[in-house]
């Protein structure tokens, strides 16, 4: 509805809102186009075409976000979750708080206002009946209510499934939507963004036994019994239990009789003409902003891909013969099917990307932990060179056990539980120092970590293991190491080695769900029997030589042959498998050396 232009008579000057007003010519022309039998709109679409939609998704440990670009309309949805005490009235239900923010960046007609939320809302409305503010309020409220209906009452998210411990802990989801750009039809974009972020979100596992954990929250006495969310590098998070994936599509109604056609001479409605023309209403799918200003009424239908209707919001505004209403539903079915398939494809792609990112992160984390332990050892000793295995190192403690995978794994578990946080902070510190240390940054990491690795983790571990075990472990370590190093040394890793690395990484990551980030032993275990293992071993041979060369520059690596010799298998594990051929050759060499 166009706002009034400035009134000249009074001293009260009202501001014309260009984003919300339509000139008469534009109005007449758009109406004419829309009301033709084969409507052709100003942007070239027919009355049944939806604008092109693009999705960008992201995921991190405790949240997921999705940005939808629906034509020029842009909406961002952020999905996060936390564990809270349930509502006393509903002890077995989780909670969902939705908030919609029509930000001023969306349109010059929107004012900065607190977002409309279903949770503990901010008591607003201090301005009184402000019509311009009303428009924004009503629109935000409409989007909020439609989302609430689609997600909650429409049966998408089952709140009872969000209950963790009945009457004690439930999940509370926050769905925060921000309309960044309003070029018409933010409702559909908002619904798609919200649903996509809910689908993309992965719920972390929860450690209910708080006292056994590493103690993230156990410092706080109030949360002493709070369950701890297990970070995603330890346990793979799970998707949400959604019953179905509904999407919404909106129509704009432009009736033939706009009211200005009525004969107002006697103030009497021309019955005959109006009744005959009452049936002619143009229904445009997915209006853009000009058409939205023009529309008299709008209809939003929420459906899933199986044409199950879960929301019908026909907010009136214009008369509609019931047959036309039914026609619109049929049109909506087709559009929604298209949108749903597109959403599924985007979700899959984003999921793959997120998984790949997660693997990389895990590998980097492993590298960092090794670096951290190395650093800690170096700082402890004044002599920067030689690093005998430090009793304080967690890895070393584990390596006391003979090379049984299971026992070692168990030790790893304990280690994880106890030291994960410490190791993480150390890793961060180590990474930071590494980044600032130029002399070590240049491919020194590979070598350093190899030395660390050989020094701490696997010495006893590998020595005691059989040759096969040793080689397996080495290859696994080198695989992960090579993975990390490959990331750092761009030019070095030939493409041949990349797939191997990926494979190893994947192997390591998936298998070490509980123990990642700890030691190189776990990756080595996982990589058992894989070709990558051999490749790693082969690589280690290469790295041995490099180590020897570079050790001169580094205090830590000043340690000559002995650690090198021992570290060779370790090095292999740490280093990425750059080249399969190299790996094979180095493996052979390493075996020879080990025998020695």
């Amino acid at each position: 509805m166009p706002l009034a232009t400035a009134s000249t008579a009074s001293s009260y000057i009202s501001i014309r809102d260009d984003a919300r007003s339509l000139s008469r010519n534009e109005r007449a022309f758009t109406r004419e186009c829309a009301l033709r039998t084969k409507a052709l709109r100003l942007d070239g679409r027919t009355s049944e075409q939806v604008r092109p939609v693009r999705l960008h998704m992201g995921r991190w440990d405790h949240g997921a976000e999705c940005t939808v670009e629906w034509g020029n309309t842009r909406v961002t949805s952020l999905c996060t979750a936390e564990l809270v005490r349930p509502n006393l009235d509903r002890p077995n239900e989780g909670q969902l708080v939705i908030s919609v923010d029509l930000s001023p960046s969306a349109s010059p007609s929107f004012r900065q206002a607190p977002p409309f939320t279903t949770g503990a809302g901010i008591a607003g409305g201090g301005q009184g009946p402000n019509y311009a503010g009303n428009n924004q309020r009503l629109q935000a409220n409409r989007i909020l209510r439609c989302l609430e209906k689609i997600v909650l009452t429409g049966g998408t998210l089952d709140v009872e499934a969000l209950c963790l411990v009945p009457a004690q802990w439930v999940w509370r989801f926050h769905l925060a939507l921000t309309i960044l750009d309003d070029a018409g039809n933010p409702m559909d974009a908002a619904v798609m963004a919200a649903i996509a972020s809910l689908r993309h979100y992965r719920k972390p596992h929860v450690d209910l036994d708080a006292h056994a954990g590493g103690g993230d929250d156990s410092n706080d006495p109030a949360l002493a019994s709070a369950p701890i969310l297990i970070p995603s590098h330890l346990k793979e998070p799970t998707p949400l239990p959604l019953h179905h994936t509904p999407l919404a599509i909106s129509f704009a109604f432009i009736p033939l009789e706009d009211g200005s056609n009525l004969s107002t001479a006697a103030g009497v409605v021309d019955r005959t003409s109006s009744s005959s023309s009452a049936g002619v209403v143009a229904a445009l799918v997915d209006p853009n902003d000009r058409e939205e200003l023009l529309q008299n009424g709008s209809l939003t239908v929420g459906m899933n891909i199986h044409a199950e209707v879960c929301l019908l919001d026909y907010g009136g505004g214009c008369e509609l013969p019931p047959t036309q209403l039914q026609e619109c539903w049929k049109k909506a079915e087709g559009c929604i099917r298209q949108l749903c398939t597109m959403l599924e494809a985007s979700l899959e792609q984003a999921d793959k990307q997120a998984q790949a990112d997660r693997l990389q992160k895990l590998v980097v984390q492993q590298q960092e932990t090794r670096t951290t332990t190395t650093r800690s050892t170096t700082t402890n000793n004044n002599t920067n060179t030689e690093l005998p295995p430090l009793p304080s190192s967690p890895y070393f403690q584990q390596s006391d056990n003979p090379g049984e995978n299971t026992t070692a794994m168990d030790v790893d578990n304990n280690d994880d539980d106890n030291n994960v946080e410490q190791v993480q902070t150390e890793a961060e510190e180590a990474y930071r120092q590494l980044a600032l240390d130029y002399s070590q940054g240049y491919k020194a990491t590979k070598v350093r970590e190899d030395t660390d690795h050989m020094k701490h983790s696997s010495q006893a571990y590998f020595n005691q293991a059989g040759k096969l075990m040793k080689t397996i472990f080495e290859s696994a370590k080198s695989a992960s190491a090579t993975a990390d190093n490959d990331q750092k040394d761009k030019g070095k890793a030939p493409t041949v080695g990349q797939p191997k690395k990926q494979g190893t990484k994947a192997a390591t990551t998936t298998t070490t769900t509980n123990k990642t980030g700890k030691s190189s032993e776990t990756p080595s275990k996982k990589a058992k029997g894989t070709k990558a293992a051999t490749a790693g071993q082969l690589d280690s041979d290469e790295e041995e030589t490099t180590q020897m060369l570079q050790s001169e520059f580094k205090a830590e690596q000043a340690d000559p042959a002995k650690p090198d010799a021992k570290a060779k298998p370790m090095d292999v594990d740490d280093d990425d498998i750059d080249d399969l051929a190299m790996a094979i050759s180095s493996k052979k060499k390493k075996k020879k050396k080990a025998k020695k």
Partner: protein
Amino acid sequence: MTTSLRRADLLSLSNLRNDGRKPEEIRRLRVQLGPLAGEAGGSALVEMGLTMALAVVKGPMECLRRSDELPDRAILDVKVSAAPFGFGTDRRVTNANTDRRLVEAAHWLQKAMEATVLLQLHPKSRIQIHVLVLADDGGRLCAAINAATCALLDAGIPMKDFCVACTAGLDEDTTLVDLNRREESSSNGQPAVVLPCAMLPQRGTVVLAQCEARLPSTDTLHRVQAAAMDGCRAVFEILQAAVRERATTLLSARKGHASIENAFP
């Protein structure tokens, strides 16, 4: 021992609903036009079963803000509030400006009335509609719309047609008309299918339709929609009769034959 036949069993045996109605029957509808006589405008009190809504209309009058006014038509300023007392309404004091359900109801009411009232006859003016829901036993929105229609008629504002509203629902494949609160509330964890629908009965067009629950197909939607429209027509008959009666009373009062009672029941 004689087994006592429970009321619920009796109802289900004879295919009646929980208050004894047939599936296509609407509740008792009582309309009172002009209960608040002092108002310079119109008012109406509509009772659909136990749901009671009071609507007060003022206008056409000047806009509060010059920036609000439209050059070619009037604007509708609608507010719906729920009384904290009264059967069925929320005990918490819900602010009509911020409570999202009330704001939504006001928005729908405004849209429905925009399609009905001849706004072009009063440019640059404002028509204020305030609906107070006194008791809520299901069908709050419909009672509000019906009350607003009657109040507008009582105020003498020209309209294209009556705007009548009625809910319809689905109970295991039987379409029900005019649901009460019990039928509206969700049973077995599934939200009940409730479709409030407003239409202009003499013109045969729909101006409002809402549905929140999950329906298996659009055909089901057609059926429920058709049932709602039947309910609207039944409501229309009663409303029309009430308006005619009121008009007759006013005419005869003008001639001195009768006096107008505005007793609030």
